[in-house]
């Protein structure tokens, strides 16, 4: 697929949702990846896991119906779907670490060509570090998808030969969704699967990471 314009955040979320197999157990972390939930087909039976101890989490609670005993990883009030299950934190993270989750979708500051992920700390001396469940998800889920902008605000690429920010996990990222392209990271290197409003050649020019043209395009 090659589009003439970069994807919006909604289009990126829809693309991720399309790539999740029906019936998968999925963790969407916090922030932008949680938008993926809005684009999942209810008939596909994807079960959402939230790190604070729930499977089959439903959408955000309507205003006026918030239950503060029922929140998501971002501590926002949510709902339960029929067939939901609650469990404590050690079980919740055993599910991740034990390889039971099919997919997690995370944001990132940087991803390296080898699939290293940096998404918890800028390393700035005055920054207060916070890691939450990111390291557990990164090494635990069977497939780790990243959703991020391809370039930082200063224009530097976030898909890099090696991460300059402190790592969250080593060699853990399988696929990167950006507004300009989808990249598959595998043993052979970084494969460009699709591009949006740019070309393979333009990406190869702007990124320092060696790229491989995907078999089915672009």
């Amino acid at each position: 697929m090659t589009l003439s314009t970069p994807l919006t955040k909604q289009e990126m979320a829809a693309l991720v949702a399309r790539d999740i197999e029906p019936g998968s157990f999925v963790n969407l972390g916090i922030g932008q990846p949680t938008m993926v939930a809005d684009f999942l087909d209810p008939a596909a039976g994807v079960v959402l896991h939230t790190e604070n101890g729930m499977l089959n989490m439903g959408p955000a609670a309507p205003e006026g119906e918030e239950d503060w005993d029922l929140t998501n990883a971002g501590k926002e009030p949510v709902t339960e779907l029929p067939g939901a299950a609650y469990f404590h934190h050690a079980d919740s993270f055993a599910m991740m670490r034990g390889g039971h989750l099919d997919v997690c979708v995370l944001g990132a500051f940087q991803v390296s060509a080898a699939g290293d992920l940096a998404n918890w700390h800028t390393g700035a001396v005055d920054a207060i570090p916070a890691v939450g469940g990111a390291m557990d998800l990164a090494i635990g889920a069977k497939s780790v998808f990243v959703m991020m902008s391809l370039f930082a605000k200063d224009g530097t690429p976030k898909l890099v030969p090696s991460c300059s920010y402190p790592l969250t996990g080593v060699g853990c990222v399988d696929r990167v969704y950006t507004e300009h392209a989808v990249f598959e990271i595998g043993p052979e290197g970084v494969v460009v699967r699709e591009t949006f409003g740019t070309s393979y050649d333009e990406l190869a020019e702007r990124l320092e990471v060696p790229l491989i043209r995907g078999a089915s395009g672009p």
Partner: protein
Amino acid sequence: MTKTRFYDSDTGADEAVADVADGSTVLIGGFGLAGMPIELIDALIRQGASGLTVVNNNAGNGDTGLAALLAKGRVRKVICSFPRQKDSWVFDGLYREGKVELELVPQGNLAERMRAAGAGIGAFFCPTGVGTPLAEGKETREIDGRTYVLEYPIRGDVALVGAHRADRMGNLVYRKTARNFGPVMATAATTVIAQVREVVDVGGLDPEAVVTPSIYVDRVVAV
């Protein structure tokens, strides 16, 4: 019939935390405010124990609960996974002034290290954090081709847990995602104090639904 003590009076929370010593390690349940034992924390603030090491997923929200304990200067060290939030201004200020120490622990390791303490495990090899700054200086081992980091238990002198309901045996049930760290912390401290919204008679909880059996629970306060 049971070793669990019940504190039913209006000052029950104060009586239940009366013997918390200065310098204690206090495990405090809750994920943000869900499951946070606010009334027990308020009682601990009135009680005055200081130099505390507090274990919680976060480092306080707004100005209540754990944030209020921090604001009073009673906490020497916070062990948590996610201190920085949009409403963590109390911790942020103390941390930047160097008035509180932070041990940052990946969330699953935080839970599992307490689980290990409660289960009598001496240490465990864990894949989380390998190759990151949070594993620096820690022993590693390759097992079946994968690298693991050695992680040690976190034990509490006291655990303050927010549950939903107790029976007069001291069995606990929780409600929805407010369960979070409560069941794990209840296994990992010398003295476990639970606050609940309701105490029911023995037989009033379905034994199949009990999450924290009474063997772990020392004190129950109805709030």
